[in-house]
């Protein structure tokens, strides 16, 4: 009798957790009307300063063949 009760309890617990999760997710849907802002850390600005170059890009003294002029 006891194993049956434990199985029933586990099943009820699983179903309950599933229902609670579904209710939580449904009530926290992404709001498409929310203010648009990518998730970034606040930071300081460096306007007009030097070009910031990461490790995968190398500066050079070679003459450029072209540029990313603004169009």
């Amino acid at each position, binding site marked *: 009798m006891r194993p049956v009760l434990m199985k029933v309890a586990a099943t009820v617990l699983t179903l309950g957790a599933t229902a609670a999760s579904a209710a939580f997710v449904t009530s926290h849907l992404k709001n498409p009307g929310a203010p648009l802002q990518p998730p970034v850390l*606040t930071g*300081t600005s460096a306007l007009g300063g030097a*070009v*910031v170059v990461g490790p995968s*890009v190398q500066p050079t003294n070679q003459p450029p*063949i072209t540029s*990313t002029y*603004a*169009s």
Partner: protein
Amino acid sequence: MRPDKAVVAHHFEAMGTACSLFAVGMPERRLVDGERWVHDLASRLTRFSADSELSRLNARAGEWVEISAELEAVLRAAGQAYEMSSGLVNAAVMPSLLAAGYTRTLNAGATAVMLERARPAPALPEVLHVRSALARIEPGACVELGGIAKGWMADRLCEVMGPNVVVNLGGDLRANGAGLHGDGWPVSVAGVTLLLRDQGAATSSVRRRRWGCAHHLIDPRSGLPAETGLEEVSVVAASGFEAEVVAKTALLLGPELATAYCSRNALAWWLDGHHDA
């Protein structure tokens, strides 16, 4: 012995801007073929011709319309740009562009500015639906592909042309391969020369394509020409498309957030503007 490796270059005008193609050890006719590819695709993706594939899609809002594989790919890229930028790069800003007077090519001149008609842009996924070879735009909406198309085209043309090529479509640029000397292609980004290898770069600016009190970069949150305090952003990223999206997003974020955003999303970057927006 004559060296068989040399950089060949080809320059032309397309999409209202200057374009350049560079390659190592490639016959120039291949670059001319590349120019033809750009003109052909640009004529299908432009909003300035009523006969273009994009204009026909916009004109049939509310219907599922058959589209080419290329338009499908660029429309999907527009959706990807929207997701990457949390909605700041939004191809559905076209009604605001029209209200700002950008109704025809700027060579023909802007028309009257009627910013009182500008509205915040709708969420792109709510007005643009893309399936295999089909697309549907909701009634009242329309899309323009602008810089997204240029970045996407630069990436695609690089793939088409070969392994050691640079494609620069009006500043939306993709560099594939090791260049002439094997260390990358030297490209000027904000006045500094960087060696790019299998990378893209772009500059987003509100200093050009200006007329009166308006310019071409619309902030989808307001529907008005963006005034964030940033005027120009240059970015190096993994592809031309990604560089275009990151540069435009950073400019729309403004100076307080753009540095942190670029540090997470760009390989190199430069910001310019003013603090008193």
